[in-house]
């Protein structure tokens, strides 16, 4: 045995250990030289961190695949449940809104509700999975050194895979009720990318937060419900009265939902204001969440 490492050994810097240099630190998780120095709270060198993240991406994919398997995603009924659950929810909300408003929104409103609800579900699904990704990592975190950001990353991936089948049942409703599909539909790609960035940012934030406050998960349940009602899903963004407009500006997901709805409901390119505000929120939360998570991740092993 031992033969397998020969080629590795030959590449190793086997000279006498030298004084710490910047180069040493660039190999944080890799197989050559590791130097561990105090940086309990603080950013590790970002370049090598991201490189290492990319090198271990297989792990995030595998973790997500394993998560899905444990949720019976690979069985027919597991898939069916994933689709049925949001579909039933969409129906319930449709009836609810119909009663409350005393006027029928019709199939068109149903299409809006369904599209917006499903994409919103993607965001909250990612957050819900991410919140326990680090604290549920247990032994893996205690015993292996790897970029921890892969844990919430895998959650977003899992949420994305759970989101895809819901788009399949949305398609017939869209074709029946929506505008004639045109090239404007391509706008969905960048808008969805912004949703992913937003979801990742909040996911990293709550995953790290859960380490410090173990009841964050319980608070999150309420926060996400309030968020749902405060977002233009059960109503159109254009219907919001003037006095509540500030809520749409303060809600990170509202401009993205408005952009999404204008594509899906009206077949129009999203307004640049919505796109810019949505992108600003997404990038801001992504950077905040990412930097917070990475600067804290070395401390997780102590806190678990």
């Amino acid at each position: 045995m031992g033969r397998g490492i020969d080629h590795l050994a030959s590449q190793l810097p086997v000279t006498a250990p030298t004084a710490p240099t910047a180069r040493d630190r660039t190999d944080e998780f890799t197989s050559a030289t590791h130097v561990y120095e105090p940086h309990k709270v603080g950013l590790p060198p970002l370049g090598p961190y991201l490189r290492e993240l990319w090198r271990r991406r297989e792990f995030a994919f595998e973790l997500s695949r394993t998560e899905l398997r444990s949720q019976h995603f690979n069985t027919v009924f597991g898939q069916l449940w994933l689709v049925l659950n949001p579909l039933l929810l969409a129906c319930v909300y449709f009836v609810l809104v119909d009663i409350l408003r005393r006027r029928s929104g019709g199939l068109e409103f149903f299409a809006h509700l369904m599209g917006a609800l499903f994409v919103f579900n993607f965001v909250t699904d990612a957050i819900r999975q991410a919140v326990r990704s680090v604290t549920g990592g247990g032994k893996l975190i205690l015993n292996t050194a790897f970029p921890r950001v892969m844990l919430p990353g895998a959650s977003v991936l899992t949420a994305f895979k759970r989101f895809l089948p819901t788009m399949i049942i949305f398609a017939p409703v869209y074709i029946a009720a929506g505008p004639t599909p045109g090239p404007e539909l391509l706008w969905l790609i960048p808008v969805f990318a912004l949703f992913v960035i937003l979801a990742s940012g909040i996911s990293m934030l709550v995953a790290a937060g859960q380490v410090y406050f173990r009841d964050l998960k319980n608070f999150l349940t309420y926060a996400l419900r309030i968020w749902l009602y405060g977002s233009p899903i059960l109503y159109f963004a254009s219907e919001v009265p003037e006095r509540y407009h500030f809520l749409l500006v303060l809600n990170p997901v509202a401009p993205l939902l408005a952009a999404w709805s204008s594509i899906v409901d009206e077949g129009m390119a999203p307004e640049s204001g919505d796109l810019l505000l949505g992108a600003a929120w997404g990038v801001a939360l992504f950077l905040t969440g990412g930097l917070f998570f990475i600067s804290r991740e070395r401390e997780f092993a102590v806190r678990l």
Partner: protein
Amino acid sequence: MSSLSASDRVRIRVDDVSVTYRTSLERAPTLRSTLTRLGRRERVIKEIQALRGVSFEVGHGKVMGIVGANGAGKSTLMRTVAGILPPNTGRVEVHGRVSTLLSLGVGFNKQLTGRENVVLGGLAAGLTRAELLEKYDEIVDFAELEEFMDMPMRTYSAGMYGRLAFAVAMTMHPEILIIDEALSVGDARFRRKSFERMRQLCQEDHTILLVSHALGTIEKLCDECIWMHKGLLRMWDEPTAVVEAYTDFLGVRDADKEPDPVTMEDL
């Protein structure tokens, strides 16, 4: 100590490392308790100095034994060398690919099957999928758990759990292997087998950190030994000398100066 010639290629260098934990005495930190405590300054936090100014080196191909009572900081030291815990002061330098076998479990999640755990653990440790495929059979063979690999690990017995962990760590072909209390897993036959594998690895140029309470193993396998006591490095010498001083200290020697067989027993 003169035997530790300076010309050895140093694989692990631990330089004046201290690690301090802050543990809160609350069950788990919660937002609710933080909010209700707000204003009243009654944070119950205890600082634990797990390591205090520890320095040592391990040369290429050497087997370093680590002994010490429970709570002496052995596991903390292993995690620091593995890069899992950051030191509060000092510096750890590690040259080579590290495989860890800490506290029996290479990141095993009991809900997942043995196969899933091996794959996830390997990928997290930085192996590629191809490398893993190559090693998978070797791992299963060594652990002798063929029929259990597709069962969730919660159905495993403690011995089977340890065997799989040991097999994974042994099969990673690490240049540096960190083993914490792992030799005492499995039945007599598996222990014999893992001892043989360890001996083989020790002879094969691997650098090994071995934490064990089985002092006989330490004496048989190690080139050098350190004794940790309450976070301090108390002694660093030949294994026999350290084991002698350690057993003296523990008061587990018989009147005729023969070590108590229970403390030496390991295989």
